[in-house]
């Protein structure tokens, strides 16, 4: 399922957070949202989770207007903070979110066990999340996102605050999922993560300043680093 974002605008307290953003995320590709803090990455993701509505413009997923509860079943959202219940065990967290997606009985048990194994938390699944380390919470959050086998993944800064080893393994997981044919949007402000994505969209102060394949974008720079595009944008006053 492709995600089409067409001429979307969003204003918070008279401040334009997103200005006329048009973007497509394709099946079997990872689209990377790059940009400094406050550029509008999280806002864009929240528009695609249905948590926010655009002031103007529209979003379609798989050809259907969004938000739509049928489509929401296909979405796996990983928020920026861990957003898991610390007074529940890891497994209970998964069971809870599974039920919200309409899973039940043996199917729910099976999917929860698979998902917790997939993030290497099997031996800690009965522990309360309040006793988890930061990295474990992040992995549990990822397991919750993937539990119901969604075809669309919206990952808001999934690698913030985790060590390089875990970061690499998380990105390996994303690659696996991409190859399964999922549509993935990842936001990050770590430029080198963009190299593992097929496409990148650069946001700067609410404007989309670049949107192309990573290959093409890298070709535009002299140094081979995407960061250069932001410095160029800053010099040009926001537009390229």
């Amino acid at each position, binding site marked *: 399922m492709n995600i089409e974002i067409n001429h979307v605008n969003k204003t918070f307290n008279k401040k334009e957070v997103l200005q006329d953003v048009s973007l497509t995320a394709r099946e079997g590709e990872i689209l990377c949202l790059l940009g400094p803090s406050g550029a509008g990455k999280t806002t864009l993701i*929240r528009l695609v*989770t*249905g*948590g926010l*509505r655009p002031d103007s413009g529209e979003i379609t997923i798989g050809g259907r207007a969004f*938000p*739509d*509860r*049928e489509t*929401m*079943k296909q*979405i796996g*959202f990983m*928020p*920026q*903070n*861990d*957003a*898991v*219940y*610390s*007074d*529940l*065990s890891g497994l*209970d967290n998964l069971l*809870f*979110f599974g*039920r*919200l*997606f*309409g899973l039940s009985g043996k199917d729910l048990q099976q999917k929860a066990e698979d998902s917790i194994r997939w993030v290497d938390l099997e031996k800690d699944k009965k522990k*309360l999340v309040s006793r988890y380390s930061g990295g474990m919470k992040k992995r549990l959050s990822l397991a*919750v996102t993937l539990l119901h086998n969604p075809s669309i993944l919206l990952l808001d800064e999934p690698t913030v605050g985790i060590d390089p080893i875990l970061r690499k393994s998380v990105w390996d997981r994303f690659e696996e999922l991409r190859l399964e044919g999922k549509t993935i949007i990842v936001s990050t402000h770590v430029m080198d993560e963009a190299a593992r994505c097929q496409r990148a969209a650069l946001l700067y102060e609410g404007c989309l300043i670049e949107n192309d394949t990573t290959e093409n974008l890298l070709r535009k720079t002299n140094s081979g680093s995407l960061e250069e595009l932001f410095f160029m944008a800053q010099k040009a006053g926001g537009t390229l």
Partner: protein
Amino acid sequence: MKGLIIRIFHQMGNDRRTLALMIAAPILILSLLYLLLGEGTYIPAISVSQDFPPALLAELRKQDVDVSVLPHDIDADIDIGMGADGVDTDTAGADTDTADTADTADANDANDALSEVDTCADTLLKEKTTDAVVTVDTDGMHIRMLESGSSKAASITSAIKNAAAAVNPSAAMNLSFVYGQVDSTSFNSLGYVLLGVLSFFFVFIISGISFVRERETGTLERLMATPIRRISVVGGYTVGFGILAAIQSVLMILFSRYVLGMKFEGPVWLAMLIMVLLAFTAVSLGAFVSIFANNEFQVMQFIPLVIVPQMFFSGLITIDTLPYGLGNISYLMPIYYGCSGLEKIMIKGFGLEGIWKELCMLLAFILVLFALNVLALKKYRKL
């Protein structure tokens, strides 16, 4: 919705302290109040002057008080001052050796003396050697006590009243009430206020804080990114916490009725029904208030705003006599309906037909707050 309810039970099961707060704390407080407000064994001490009428003294000794006659020297000083409103101009009272002269003097010019009250009777009262100093003169009886409005003052005046009535039966006051008994303890006559306010308070805090925590940690945002309906989120919350609150309410009623022996004139199950509805209102109000709070601390700040004024209208103060139509505010307060329903059942012995108005109003509060909470979630998802 079922998922949410299961989750709330799991969370409570894992958080023993919160569970203990909900169950043990109200029971502990009820027991404490039972000891504080219940049948006291304290016998107040009364000191009378030497010239106290013997007939009255004999009757007073038959009451539940410890009567003693003041020693002659102290009596002399006290006698001067009792009931006087002038300023003392002579120094006779301070001198205990001239007691006899002072004694005869005071009968004639009692109005001249006042400071002796402070130096003698009040010293005795402040030292707590006695609870009341009683003298008699031509103006009648003078009773001086330490503090107004205390339970000691109430039992002393009633003892003296009873003694006076025994001497002169036509002066007897025979109190009786349509509802409640003359000798019912504060614990019994205020029991309904305690039950209503306590249960509302604890449930409000727990519901408000867990809802605000859900928003703070971002789990609510994640919840709203699933296909769950807004109405199911609020429904799950209300029912999940409502069931826990209902268990608490039922336990509180059972404990007060069967362990502490609180009087229930009407049916106990009806009191439980009112308590359960009041608890659901508290859950909804807690969730509603959390919309306006950004963290746990801000939820606590709503207690003086939301809970304390409601306590005043719970039956602690007689509402009919309030000035400026202030009593009308009570119609906006769930605790008012909860407590007046409980009062009608526990004190007046009404049945279902007598409290349908309270039941309907509590249901209305629950429905209105439910709708507002569903609307408020639009902030997280318009759908």
